[in-house]
């Protein structure tokens, strides 16, 4: 063969290779709109009963009672149910019980604890047909195991306080049980953190070595075991860090879900998430762990007509904690001036297209205990300047106010680095406060440092911008009660980072907790909100919404706005 012949052969081989590669690729092409599910099932008919969801986090453990994380809550909603739940109207309701126990219906009875203190006995009944995914009936044995695991401090359960308060669990039969609580509070009948554990699978693992239970539980070792789940779906496949596949539970006792198969895919990068939904690789983006509001708004402006984009404001409270130990910020007039100097409504309109309502206190206006009889702080530059003058910050030098001692009005604001929305807000606030002579300095940190150390140990010198997520009618004991101020002595326990300490506020918080009827609680709630708005230990900013990006054909997805995920009603989801 001549040299040119050899070259020709190489060219021929190259063309052949390229053609093969193209053919292989072409084999992979199909209907752009059909979801490409892991497993390669792109058949059009089957895909109609399939749904692929994108979220930004993969649940690290699937044990229902160990470690709290939003991704787990999202997936768990499809495969398990807590005893009680907050519904779409933000009312407590039964999820895995037949009737919500109340004092009025006689299922909750006031009693004395063995120590002679006031306590309460609350009785529940499990649904008769509740069954684990392997066909084993779900009984009170499974509740007892959850209680035993929760009470054992070596297991690392996430709501130790709840298990401590339930000092006795009494079993009446396979379906009925009573818990005895050592304290009477208005939320006595909420059992949202208690998920049954399958006694026939997990009891043996737990009793073999309670200390090692959290490592050896089947929820970690064999998460696809159908006997671990009892919701509308079972986890049938899991690829650590990538996706979870849920398939119908043949033993589900409630309304049959529409979809045969739901795949939940973790896509951390939000730009990649957008590309995934545009390419049809995923069908929807879950709002609980999806795009941030500004990203969703940008997405809507480009592709809004192709999707149903739902913004659900709820209980995510963006705010600025004030370090009241800072001498400048200890002056209430300065705190008020700061809030008057921020045009929050303008920020809402310009940055969030009006979708992020301005907050007045830590109680959501959607909450039944919200009060309108409070001081409100609309943007008022003149009032802000007058308050600063009154506080002694009168000497304006180079655009910054100084007091009589020549000290500049310089305040530091900190937040979570990498959160683009918060970084943008800080810059806007910095600009607005500059107009009233406040020199606001921005210093952000990685979230793990900011939350793990800076806020908890009050290492922020001035202001800390972050968010709280809570449940409806959440008593602000941990954030506002004087006993909850983190100190070195109490191992930095508590979340009262601002260090507000007012006997009047403590009394109102304690009264709310103890008062059983809503009508009687409302005045105390109003008092808390009035003190909050008047004293401003925290500068309220916004109620952050979740952004759900859904295909037009998907119906029945109802965002809740609170801690309970939309997946807790996954059996209502359908294609139309």
């Amino acid at each position, binding site marked *: 063969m001549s*040299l040119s012949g050899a070259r020709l052969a190489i060219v021929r081989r190259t063309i052949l290779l390229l053609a093969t590669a193209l053919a*292989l*690729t072409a*084999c*992979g*092409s199909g*209907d*752009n709109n059909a979801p490409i*599910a*892991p*497993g*390669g099932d792109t058949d059009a008919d089957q895909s109609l009963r399939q749904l692929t969801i994108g979220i930004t986090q993969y649940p*690290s*453990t699937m*044990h229902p009672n160990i*470690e*709290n994380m939003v991704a787990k809550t999202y997936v768990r909603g499809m495969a398990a149910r807590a005893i009680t739940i907050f519904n779409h109207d933000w009312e407590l309701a039964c999820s895995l019980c037949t009737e919500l126990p109340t004092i009025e219906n006689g299922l909750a009875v006031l009693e004395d604890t063995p120590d002679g203190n006031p306590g309460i006995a609350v009785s529940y009944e499990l649904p008769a047909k509740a069954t684990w995914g392997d066909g084993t009936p779900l009984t009170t044995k499974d509740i007892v195991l959850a209680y035993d695991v929760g009470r054992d*401090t*070596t297991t*690392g359960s*996430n709501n*130790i*306080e*709840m298990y401590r308060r339930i000092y006795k669990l009494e079993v009446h039969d396979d379906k009925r049980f009573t818990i005895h609580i050592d304290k009477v509070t208005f939320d006595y009948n909420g059992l949202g953190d208690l998920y049954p554990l399958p006694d026939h699978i997990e009891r043996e693992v737990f009793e073999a070595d309670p200390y090692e239970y*959290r*490592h050896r539980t089947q*929820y970690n070792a064999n998460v696809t075991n159908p006997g671990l789940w009892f919701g509308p779906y079972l986890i049938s*496949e899991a*690829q*650590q*860090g*990538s*996706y979870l596949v849920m398939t119908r539970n043949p033993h589900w006792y409630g309304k049959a879900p529409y979809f045969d198969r739901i795949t939940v*895919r*973790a896509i*951390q*990068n939000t*730009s*990649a998430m957008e*590309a*995934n939904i*545009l*390419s*049809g*690789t995923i069908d929807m983006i879950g709002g609980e762990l999806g795009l941030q509001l500004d990203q969703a708004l940008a997405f809507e402006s480009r592709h809004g007509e192709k999707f149903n984009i739902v913004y659900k404001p709820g209980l995510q409270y963006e705010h600025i904690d004030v370090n009241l130990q800072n001498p400048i910020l200890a002056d209430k007039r300065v705190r008020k001036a700061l809030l008057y100097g921020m045009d929050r409504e303008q920020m809402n309109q310009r940055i969030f297209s009006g979708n992020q309502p301005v907050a007045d206190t830590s109680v959501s206006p959607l909450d039944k205990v919200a009060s309108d009889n409070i001081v409100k702080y609309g943007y008022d530059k003149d009032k802000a300047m007058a308050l600063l003058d009154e506080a002694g910050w009168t000497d304006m030098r180079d655009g910054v106010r100084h007091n009589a001692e020549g000290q500049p009005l310089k305040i530091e604001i900190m937040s979570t680095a990498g959160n683009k929305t918060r970084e943008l807000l800080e810059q806007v606030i910095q600009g607005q406060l500059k107009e009233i002579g406040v020199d606001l300095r921005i210093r952000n940190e990685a979230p*793990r*440092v900011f*939350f*793990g*150390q800076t*806020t*908890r140990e009050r290492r922020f010198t001035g202001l800390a911008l972050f968010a709280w997520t809570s449940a409806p009618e959440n008593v602000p004991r*941990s*954030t506002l009660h004087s006993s*909850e101020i983190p100190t070195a002595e*109490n*191992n*930095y*326990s508590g*979340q009262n980072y601002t260090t507000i300490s007012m006997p009047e506020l403590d009394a109102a918080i304690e009264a709310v907790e103890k008062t059983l009827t809503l009508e009687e609680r409302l005045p105390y709630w109003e008092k808390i909100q009035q003190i909050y708005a008047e004293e401003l230990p925290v500068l309220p900013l916004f109620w952050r919404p979740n952004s759900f990006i859904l295909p037009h054909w998907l119906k029945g997805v109802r965002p809740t706005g609170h801690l309970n995920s939309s997946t807790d009603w996954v059996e209502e989801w359908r294609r139309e």
Partner: protein
Amino acid sequence: MRQFLLNRALQSLVVIIIMSFVIYSLIGLMPGDPIDLMISANPNMTASDAAALRELYGLDLPIYERYWNWLGAALSGDLGYSRLFGQPVLAVLLPALKNSLILMGTAFLLAVCIAIPLGTLAASKPRSAVDYGVNLFAFAGISIPSFWLALMLIIVFSVFLGWLPAGGIASNGAGLLEYVKYMVLPVATIATLSIGSYSRYTRSSMLEVLRQDYVRTARAKGASNSRVVWKHALRNAMIPVVTILALDFGYLFSGALVTETIFSWPGMGKLIFDSVMGNDFNLALVALLFATALTLIGNLLADICYALLDPRIVIGGGKA
């Protein structure tokens, strides 16, 4: 040779032990432990609860004591449990390692197979259109940020053309074709970036070798240009390139964080990042040590390759 390998193995062991302490200490020095984060998230957690949990996770001990306990257990074969995933470290690590190896290995092989011929071709025809073309491609490969390239590939091949999935990994039991479909874009991203640097190294090394006397002699003897380049020069030109390839060997197992994140590929890069950010001592430590050990092995392989490529190099202190 045996003595050389033994010495290198001992050196590597010492390096790994030192690295294990350095990594453990650095992770331990990061502010905020897992219990701090739990306290932030759980308003009902009391001081005594937090103390009990610290004891449970062994976080109440001084860092050197924790390290000593870990080392003792590791030497007896117990690498511990991942705090984040609640599973034995190896059970979490091995699937991620496999995924990274498949992804990075394929990209590495593809990059080597394309970059070396490209670099050689460019060097054999300096200042020609081919040379300029290869250089342009190489500089583009080196300069383009991986996240941008990845997103562009997704937009073109997934969003516009709909040929390939935008990310993820094929499910267990899926066919080879299905698996390949999920690999194409991340492999293309990583390979494109590697091709740029490998082809530049190859070109530069080849240009150096082509100026050597023995190459001139070969040409004087009438050997064809392709024979001179591919048979005589390439082998010697590969010595510095092998160093680079060997150093990249460790990356095969430590993953590519950005590419893995954008394509949601559950590999080592993402796992190491998540474990460090999640304060998962055991997992982060073992994963990082794995990467360290494999980089050391890569260096050792490079030394052995030198001897294979150049008979003048004798490893282990023999006569050259």
